[in-house]
């Protein structure tokens, strides 16, 4: 179970390959993954870049905790979260969640749990740079 915070651009496919390379071959029949990527638009506005602030110690603890919860709830061989912070540009991956299991149902369900829990409660805050200046996403109606 691995949760990583990255201050620079990461390649989700390399992250997946790195975990896969460490797994015993033939034991997992399924890997489900989700990659969230920065858009260049939000609620009708152009978005040029984004700054992603976080509460480092709490975020790490939170991500580790949801990995543990997923491993208790589903029959997983491994799971992974990678999340960016800092300055992000459109097209950059923001988040990767992945789960490996013997069968697809557990992998899909755990992968979805990780991204939904993270999105709902992990302490990250986005500040977008739009045509009209900077704005916090949590202050933006319809975010």
């Amino acid at each position, binding site marked *: 179970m691995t949760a990583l915070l990255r201050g620079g651009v990461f390649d989700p496919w390399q992250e997946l390959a790195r975990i896969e390379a460490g797994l015993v071959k033939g034991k997992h029949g399924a890997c489900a993954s989700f990659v969230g990527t920065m858009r260049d638009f939000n609620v009708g506005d152009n978005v040029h870049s984004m700054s992603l602030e976080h509460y480092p110690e709490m975020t790490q603890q*939170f991500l580790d905790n949801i990995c543990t919860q997923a491993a208790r709830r589903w029959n997983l061989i491994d799971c992974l979260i990678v999340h960016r912070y800092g300055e992000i540009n459109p097209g950059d991956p923001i988040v990767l969640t992945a789960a490996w299991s013997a069968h697809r149902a557990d992998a899909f369900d755990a992968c979805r749990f990780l991204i939904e829990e*993270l999105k709902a409660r992990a302490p990250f*805050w*986005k500040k977008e740079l739009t045509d009209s200046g900077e704005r916090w996403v949590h202050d933006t109606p319809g*975010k």
Partner: protein
Amino acid sequence: MQLKVKFFASLSEQIGFTDTTVDVDKPATVSDVWNLATGGQTMPVNTLCAINMAYARLDDSISNGDEIAFFPPVTGGNA
């Protein structure tokens, strides 16, 4: 008792700093810590808080050495 207090995102901009230390000489709650640390500024609705990096409530009691954090609704992940 002495406590570390942290503010994040728009809250730190509103308050004007990201962290401070407060001294409390009687039993207190997270809400009391807000008032001491901010000089009684109005707390925005939807403000979230944590004690020692775990989500907490404004009426939770605090202990010596705690780290208290205040922050707006979170917006991680993506759409």
